[in-house]
């Protein structure tokens, strides 16, 4: 049996029980409250025991933490206060039943429960005995990515609540001792202990400090050498390989140029941190870029693409992408060795404009060669069907430019074309 921390109200004990025996937890809760009152609070103790003993079904979520999306820390406080109050109420219940030791033990115990709960909940992962019943084996294999920075960010608060917990427990102990009038004798011993600890601290401080600094230096050195190894590995896999290939193919200038270009692109991506492949989001700009790269590789041409703005891929952007691909293929086939093919795309809220320009031999638009007619249809036709337009300007010897334009209205993205 486990605690159902997702559906539970306090620690999920009753929710877990309800799940186990097949009864609505609400019924159990009502029954529990009645029974708790009837037994004078004795059941509350049983609840606490169950809380500590049962592992949480949901690995990562601390009990009560879900009340506040903000924080573990706030959750810790709530749990601690809850534990303190539960202890207190249990003690009061005992008093009601006639079982009573003395006031001298009740208050220190409540305080101590509060402090201990704070300490335990503070670091459930490190705690030897998990206060919230979260046994080590239910720890998730990988903490959720957003949990990490949040933990780091609230580290100070955690330390603070930890120190507070320690103070509470110590305070409870002192309170207990003083109310039993045994503190007087202890005071001298405590003073001695404090003096010894301070002295030891002063002696050891320089060693500890140096030790810490050495550790940090060691770590920095290791990180540097790891980075170096990574760079070396990358250069070996990519740049050196390509250089070797280029020497082998030195008789084929086109191949060499293509190899160099591909390597350049790859290296630039790598230097830029590979951000493009990382986010994995497909946008018109990124798709245009990969289309251009694919055609560069397949046809051994150079394509310079400049994209201003960006947008998601809707029907219209898809049409532009398709037409641009055709135009690039066309240019790659016919431009020859006449310098790079240039793509310029401008994307804003109003529309998309895209130009593909080559400085190849061009052709007379009046006498379109039959092998180009299909291409023309696939560019112009595609754009017209999508509600845009395309122009192909060319003159013999003057290169070719394909101009693609389409509006981006809201209405247009909704209706399928």
């Amino acid at each position, binding site marked *: 049996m486990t605690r159902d921390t997702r559906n539970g109200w306090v620690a999920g004990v009753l929710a877990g029980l309800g799940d186990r025996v097949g009864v609505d937890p609400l019924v159990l809760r009502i029954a529990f409250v009645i029974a708790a009152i009837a037994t004078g609070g004795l059941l509350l103790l049983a609840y606490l025991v169950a809380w500590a003993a049962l592992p949480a079904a949901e690995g990562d979520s601390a009990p009560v933490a879900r009340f506040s999306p903000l924080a573990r820390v706030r959750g810790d406080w709530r749990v601690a206060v809850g534990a303190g109050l539960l202890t207190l109420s249990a003690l009061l219940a005992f008093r009601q039943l006639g079982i009573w030791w003395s006031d001298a033990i009740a208050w220190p115990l409540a305080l101590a429960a509060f402090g201990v709960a704070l300490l335990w909940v503070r670091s459930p992962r490190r705690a030897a005995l998990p206060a919230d019943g979260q046994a080590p084996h239910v720890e998730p294999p990988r903490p959720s990515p957003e949990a990490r920075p949040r933990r780091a960010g609230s580290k100070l608060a955690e330390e603070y609540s930890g120190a507070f917990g320690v103070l509470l427990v110590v305070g409870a102990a002192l309170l207990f001792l003083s109310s039993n009038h045994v503190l007087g004798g202890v005071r001298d011993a405590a003073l001695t202990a404090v003096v010894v600890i301070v002295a030891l601290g002063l002696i050891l401080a320089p060693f500890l400090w140096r030790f810490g600094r050495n550790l940090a230096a060691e770590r920095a050195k290791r990180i540097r050498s790891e980075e170096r190894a990574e760079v070396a590995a990358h250069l070996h896999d990519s740049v050196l390989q390509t250089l070797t290939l280029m020497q082998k193919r030195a008789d084929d200038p086109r191949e060499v140029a293509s190899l160099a270009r591909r390597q350049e692109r790859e290296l630039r991506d790598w230097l*830029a941190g590979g*951000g*493009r492949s990382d986010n994995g989001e497909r946008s018109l700009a990124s798709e245009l870029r990969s289309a251009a790269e694919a055609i560069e590789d397949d046809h051994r041409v150079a394509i*310079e693409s*400049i994209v201003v703005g960006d947008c998601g891929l809707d029907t219209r952007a898809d049409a532009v992408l398709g037409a641009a691909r055709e135009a690039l293929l066309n240019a790659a086939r016919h431009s020859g060795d006449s310098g790079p093919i*240039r793509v*310029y795309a401008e994307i*804003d809220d109003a529309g998309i404009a895209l130009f593909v320009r080559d*400085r190849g031999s061009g052709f007379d638009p009046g006498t379109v060669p039959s092998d180009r007619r299909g291409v023309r249809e696939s560019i112009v036709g595609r754009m017209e069907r999508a509600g845009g337009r395309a122009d192909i300007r060319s003159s013999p010897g003057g290169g070719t430019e394909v101009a693609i334009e389409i509006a981006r209205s809201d209405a247009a993205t909704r209706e399928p074309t």
Partner: protein
Amino acid sequence: MTTGLPTVVLVDDHELFRAGVRAELEGLVDIRAEAGNVEEAASATLRERPDVVLLDVHMPGGGGVEVIRQVAQKRPTQRFLALSVSDAAEDVIAVIRAGARGYVTKSISGEELADAIRRVRDDDAVFSPRLAGFVLDAFQGEIPEAEVDPELDRLTLREREVLRLIARGYQYKEIALRLSISHKTVEAHVSAVLRKLQLSNRHELSRWAVERRLVD
């Protein structure tokens, strides 16, 4: 307009690359001196007083921006043309804002480079298609009306048109033909854009460039 071969100081920290540029520009420009680091570059420039300094963007010790800064203190009229393998918007915009009159990539052909040097010598701005794209991008977004200095923070319709054509790969004379304006007018538009780029506070252009780098 000056006649004769333009005088040039060539600044790049790669010996091999300098040799390549020198060979390509043979007979097209007069290379007076070469420099491989920031200090050499500054002193050679102040000594030779060339028409144009051909300046690598990336160099140890502060790069091209630092060279421009050091020279500008003593010779504010010195013209620079930035030459770089980098496509990163932040590098390009930084060197233009420091005062370079143009930016070309190292893949440019020798003849085009010589042409760009001549244009910078004649006080024109030289925009590569990529730089034109960056500028269009930087000036594209909306900003609150109140903060706009119309003189500096906006491109005119014509300037935008000219930049667009540059980005599409048109030469100045093709642009002039296309827009039915004179070659001189095209140059005037590009120079105006350059001035705006250097003086505008808009969105703090350098910050734009940094952000863009993150996105790209």
